[in-house]
């Protein structure tokens, strides 16, 4: 469902991705690992359409309505409506907007894009309560402003809640494990696992192997210097944990 070919991208004048290739099929889980500054977060932001990054060459194709289309042509909101979800490394605070209102608006924008009727407030509340159980969030979080005053762990859980609500086809998790204690990590990982299906795919960007104890990847890629330099299965992550990245470079 996702084909990235020879992708080059920069932010301001700094080239970050220098010829990246990646292919993701439905049902797969890919882990992208690599040292600091290798371009891991850049990749997920480009896929979601962050305006600060500029793609200088290469292509990104994504399956929409059974055909591979140029993803880079679409605005971030259209990408989201077409099933791409980015769980932010640092979720943004939105003062004055309740989490409920935010989720409801977001959910209905996606529904409308698909040509469905928007869901009423009451029905959505019920739907949401089911989803909140997945990430063990208490209902009072719905009335609070989006991410305002949330702890690091609560923000990450809130990201997974949004993911559960939008049920994306391609989920990009950008260092979702960073800053989480072991219990929060388990809750987040279980949440992600419950959302896995044969139809959707997950790309995990992570620093550490420990997330992969909970979410089993089909592929592990090592990103360094803006390119993928090694691809393997889950055992590659274990090896990296033991040996670091130096032996690959």
């Amino acid at each position, binding site marked *: 469902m996702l084909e990235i070919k020879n992708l080059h991208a920069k932010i301001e004048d700094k080239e970050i991705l220098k010829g990246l290739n990646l292919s993701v099929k439905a049902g797969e889980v890919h882990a992208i690992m690599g040292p600091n500054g290798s371009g891991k977060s850049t990749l997920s932001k480009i896929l979601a359409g962050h305006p600060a990054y500029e793609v200088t060459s290469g292509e990104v194709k994504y399956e929409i309505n059974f055909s591979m289309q140029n993803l880079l042509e679409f605005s971030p909101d259209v990408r989201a409506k077409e099933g791409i979800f*980015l769980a932010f490394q640092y979720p943004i605070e939105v003062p004055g907007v309740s989490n409920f209102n935010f989720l409801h608006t977001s959910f209905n*924008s996606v529904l409308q894009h698909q040509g469905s009727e928007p869901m009423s407030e009451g029905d959505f509340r019920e739907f949401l309560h089911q989803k909140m159980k997945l990430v063990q969030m208490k209902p009072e979080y719905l009335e609070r402003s989006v991410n305002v005053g949330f702890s690091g762990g609560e923000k990450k859980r809130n990201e997974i809640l949004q993911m559960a609500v*939008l049920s994306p086809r391609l989920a990009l998790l950008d260092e979702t494990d960073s800053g989480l204690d072991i219990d929060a990590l388990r809750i987040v990982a279980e949440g992600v696992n419950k959302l896995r299906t044969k139809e959707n795919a997950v790309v995990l960007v992570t620093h550490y192997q420990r997330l992969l104890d909970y979410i089993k990847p089909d592929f592990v890629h090592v990103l360094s210097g803006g390119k993928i330099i090694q691809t393997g299965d889950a055992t590659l992550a274990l090896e990296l944990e033991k040996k670091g990245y130096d032996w690959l470079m």
Partner: protein
Amino acid sequence: MSETSKNMNQPSADSYEYKYGFETNIESESIPKGLNEDIIKIISAKKNEPEWVLNYRLKAYRHWITLTEPSEIPEKWAQVSYPKIDFQDLTYYSAPKKKIDPKKSMDDLDPELIKTFERLGIPLQEQKRISGVAVDVVFDSVSIGTTHTAELEKAGVIFCSISEAIHSHPELVEKYFGSVVPYTDNYYAALNAAVFSDGSFVYIPKNTKCPMDLSTYFRINAKETGQFERTLIVADEGSFVNYLEGCTAPQRDENQLHSAIVELIALEKAEIKYSTVQNWYTGDKNGVGGIYNFVTKRGICKGAHSKISWTQVESGSAITWKYPSVILQGDYSEGAFYSVALTHDLMQADTGTKMIHIGKNTKSTIISKGISAGKSSNAYRGLVKIMPSAENARNYSQCDSMLVGDKCSAHTFPYIEVKNKSAILEHEASTSRISEDQIFYLQSRGLDTEKSISMLVNGFCKEVFKELPLEFSVEAVKLIEMKLENSVG
């Protein structure tokens, strides 16, 4: 505090289409341009005013000519600038030619006027009126009528134009007129007192909750004409009223002056809630035309346990200059100021409030939200003054500014004077920017750019919008959304 936004990679394009910018083609009767004692006598004669009113006007005029226009004072304090105003080049009175009889049904009005207000969303004809809100409609210098008068009369509520009240309720008008804002108050207050045209008068009798919301709609139509309205609201002991004010003007190339005085008087245990959605023409994106909105609004909580609140959404005018204030004279009285001020393109706003604590255990709340877009300048200026007599006074102030784009500016000028040690004051201020990251976050959840911005702005203004009556808050949200539509790239 003062901050100018920088380094944000967003175009500063804005300018939305001002849908109230049309002109009504109606024959009006104006007096010659210029200002002198004869002009004042003509205005007074047109309104058939009693002598005390004419004398008041003349006293105000004689005071006014001794004053210097505030922007020409060397150490001017306001954060606004504009070319010198030629007061001799303005017309101080303009009214539709066809005589308007306030006693007659509004169905008999000139059809052009009826059409005009229909386009503005204010149906005047009996069968089409908005239920639950009584409206006094002011067109240029005159009130053209007031709706729902019969229902209000039943409750003993007086709601009519100030010109009419001067005749029909002289004792009330004479007692309170100019008692809160004397003509000596400031340059524009003196000017208004000399040439005031029309506006509304409200009296709510003792222990009466006004059976419906009251509203005045101001429309400037004529060219090169200033509007100098005068509103006086008296809430007698134990009464309550919700009052709404709206305003628009045609799109014109020259600047127009709107200089009003609003006075509120709340007696013991009375409460007045005054809300404004101000949408005067702002001028075009090059800063040509637009209304100069120089207004003095002040309320006095005269009796114990009385309450006055000002809620304003300031989204129009080329220049806005106003500080709705409350004098807290009665013990345990409460004043509040809730404001959203939006500036875009080349608009300038210097707005805020004054809370003057005199009585014991008085309380005031100030929530101000400034949004600047384009190349506009937006300043909050507020004074909290605790007099020696104000034992246990409390104030809470919160002033937040939001910057949209990289060419606008936001300023906060809080002034505090405390003369009683028992006072407790809290002040919070913040300046934030709608960031690319915030918009991206909302977009990545399926909201388009416009929806994202409106969600961010609504979140920012929430504490003020919730103070508005429902219909007004819906309108305010829409207005702000429309105006910001093209402000963020």
